[in-house]
Every structure is written in C-alpha cells, then in structure tokens.
C-alpha cells in the first residue's frame, strides 16, 4: 500500500488541473486517489530487470511531413462546439481584468 496522499498534495494536483475543490471534497479525494494509486501498484510486481525503459512502442523514427499548407477548418466549423463565441473568437472567462 502506498502512502496516503496529504491534503496539500491533493490541493496541488487540483490546482494543476484547474479544479476548484471544497475542503470536504479534498478530504474525500485524498482517500480515493490514494486507493487508485495503490491499485496501479500491482505493476511493481512485474520483473523489469531485463527491460529497457521506453516512451515509444512503434519502433518508428524520423516521421516528418513536408512544409506544405493543407486546407484548414472554416471559422464556423472551428467554433462549432464552443460554448461561447464573439466575432470569430472563442470566448473564455477573463484571464486579466481590465481597469
């Protein structure tokens, strides 16, 4: 069993995910996340002494494209699934408040 995640660790993870959590939710999640993490721990049982680490499984290298322009989506298609749009832009909650 892995160590339990601390409240501060959960707060940090929530911040990285841009989640706004209540104190009660943080407590609950600390338990649940620790449980989920310990589940993945079964992987530790594998014998990997003779296995090299990799981030790639395809065996491919140097997959490039030429510098050619292909057609793009139309503006209306690009914005189709946006919650809010304005004048051809996506609209999101303000990141800076204008004076």
């Amino acid at each position, binding site marked *: 069993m892995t160590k339990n995640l601390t409240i501060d660790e959960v707060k940090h993870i929530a911040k990285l995910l841009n989640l706004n959590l209540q104190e009660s939710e943080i407590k609950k999640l600390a338990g649940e996340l620790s449980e989920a993490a310990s589940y993945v721990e079964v992987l530790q049982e594998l014998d990997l002494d003779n296995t090299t680490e990799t981030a790639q499984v395809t065996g491919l290298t140097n997959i490039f494209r030429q510098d050619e322009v*292909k057609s793009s989506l139309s503006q209306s298609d*690009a914005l189709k699934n946006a919650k809010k749009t304005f004048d051809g832009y996506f609209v999101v909650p*303000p*990141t800076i408040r204008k004076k």
Partner: protein
Amino acid sequence: MMNTKYTPIIGLEIHVELKTQSKMFCGCSASHFQVEPNTHTCPVCLGLPGALPVANQKAIEWCQLIGLALNCRLAKESKFDRKNYFYPDLAKSYQISQYDQPLCYQGEVVLKNGHKIGITRVHMEEDTGKSIHKKINGEDQTLIDFNRSGVPLVEIVTEPDFRNPEDVDEFLKTLRQIIRYLDVSDADMEKGSMRLELNMSLTSHPELISGSHPQFPNYKVEVKNINSFKYLQKALVYEFARQAEILDRGETPVQETRGYQEDVDKTISQRSKEDAQDYRYFPEPDIPPMVFEEKDLENLKKLLPELPQQKREKFTKTFGISTETAWVLTESKELALYFEQAVKLGEVLKIEAATIANVIKNKKYDWQKLSPEELITKLKQESSDKVSDEGALGKIIDEILKNNPKVVEDYKAGKVQVLGFLVGQVMRQTQGKADAEISNKVLRQKLK
C-alpha cells in the same frame, strides 16, 4: 546607472517564430499576423481528441541551422516532450516542446569585446494561441484566436554569462542579425516573432562566479513581457536598482517571475516560488524520436549561408577594408549582398572595393535608392573627374603648405591630426575633385 558594489548575473531566453509556410505539427498555414481569427486551424492545433501531430521537417532543419550558426553541437538523438500547464490559449493543456534532448546544445557567441556568451540549448516547440482581453457589454472577457496555435517556435537559452547591459544588447542584435541572415524568421519584436525573457541576480563577490566552480547567488529573478530591446535595457536598470536596494538592507530578493510594465517603467511580481510551475514533462508518445546520422548533420552544414562574421572576415581580408566599415556593411544581408555585387561590377571598371565601401558607409549615396550598377556608374563618373595626378596635386599642395606655416610646424611637432585640415584645403582648392588618398600620400611625403 549601475553601481559598482554589485555585479549583475544575467541570462536570456529568446523565442523566435519560424516563417515556415505551415505549422509545426499540422498543415495549417502558419501565417497569423492580421489574419481573420480562427481560420487557420484544424483538429491538431485546436487540440481536439484523437488528432495526430506530425513534425514539420523544414522547421526542424531551420532550428538546427540556428543551432549551427550559434556554434552549437547538434544532437544525434532527439525527441519531443509534453509540457503540461493549464491556460486558455493552450488548446491541448500541454505544449509540445523538448525537455532533456534538445536538437542543439552547448553553443557560444563571441562579442566584439571578446566576451563569450554560452548557449545552453536551442530547441523546437510550438506557439500558443493568442489571447485578447476585451470588455464586451461591460463584462471583462478573454477572446482566443488559435491561428497562432502550433506555429513553429525556436527557444534559445543562454548561460548566465552576461555581466552588463551593453553585452546583452550587442548579443541580441547579433542574434537577430544571424537569424535574419539565415532567413528563417523575421525576428521582429513588434510583430512578436522574436520575444525576450531574462533572468538576473546580483553578487557583491564577482570572484565567486568566475572560474570552473562558480557559486551563484541563492536566488534568481525572471523578467517577462519585454517588448523591445529598449525596454529590455530599462528592465535591466530597474531590476538592478530594485535588487541592489533589497541586498543593501541585508535581505535576499524573492525568487520569482516578474513582468515588465513599460507604462510605469517597473517590473511587477507575477508569480512567486510558492506556486512555482510544475510542468510534469513526459515524452510525447504521438511523435516518434528523431535520429540523425553524421552525414545528415554534415549535409546540414552545407545549407548554412555565409553569416555576418564570415562576411566581415572576407571583407577585411580580401577587400582590405577596416573592421569598423565591415560591421557597417554587414548590418543587413541585403546590404552585404549589395556591396558584394557592386565590388564585382567595380572590378571591371577599376573601382576599388574600399572606395565603394566608403561611399556606402559615409552615406554619400543611398544604397537603397540606387542599384549596384547605378552606384558604380556614378563612381566611375566621379573618378574620371578626379584630379589624381601626383604632379598636379603636388603643385597645389606646395602652395597650401607655403600659406600655412603654422600648421606645418604643428604637424612636425607631432600634431598629426592637422593632416585632415590640409587635405580639406586641397579639396577646397580643387572644388572637391582631388583624390583624397593620393593627396594624403603627397602631403605626407612633402611634410617629411
């Protein structure tokens, strides 16, 4: 401006947007300046699920060329990584960048004064979308345009090797010049195709930061949002004074990111260490790694055009012009090529490279308004009008020396700068038609 009690330790991080036709990982057009918003997007650069990024070969080649031009070593093995952070202009919530295997590393740029600036790395990444902050119906809103999302971006990181603002300025101008010679980016600060960030700390023990085991101060302040070379200088001056004042009080400046605000000429705290970014870099699983053979890298070197430094060496060695003039003539690639073409044309008509160099440098003629042919024609015309006969000039000079005994005395007493006055007199007597070089020679002979 900067007191001598402290020595600044400055490093730079420069982003350069490449001017490829298409984006870094998809075929959307990379042009985004004054383009209708969200018209150059696709599932890849909008970060839609299931889209597969494929790297633009030209962008990678250009990044390597920048590395070569900055005397970097090129990686034989390289890969992309995901840099995770949350921000609305970052469609995927991660930026495809490079972490532990940059395309280029360990370079160096030597400044005019001999100072060496180490280049830590040059790597390839993608730009983010553009945010516009606006009030709509009285409400603050942020508008996002993803045309810029995924445009190839090269990041250049220097070692903290700068010890004064003048070196920073020269380095940046040299870098911009090199990039423009390579013709891989406009490197235009105003259009945002070149962006600067700096980091700075101060030490009162400069002896500790030289040598093979430098001990740097225990803090470092990053400054972002610098929109011109001029503002960078101002930000350096402001930051120096701010940090010096804190150190004078016996305290240590907070390690943090600050933004330069040009309207008030100050840097303002943006983010302190407590919420330092945690980017959780990991290898980009969608893009296979890159492997370069020795011969690929050799071929790449052949693509390097003549750079400002090489042109300057050529100009001084083969054309015998001064280093100072060579710097002027290599200011832009266009001017250097113009000069070379004029020299070629001049050869046929026996017009010296040095003569051409001087008229361009002294702005006697505006090179941007005359073709090299027109310039040479004008110079030919001038030289045929010129009095360059030593005998004829000798007579005029004898007369001048006779009328200026005091000046002759001064010259013989060691005030050699009066020679300029005497050449001026010769020019006056001949209505500017005397050959300056020959007049000079004859004057020296007669004054011996």
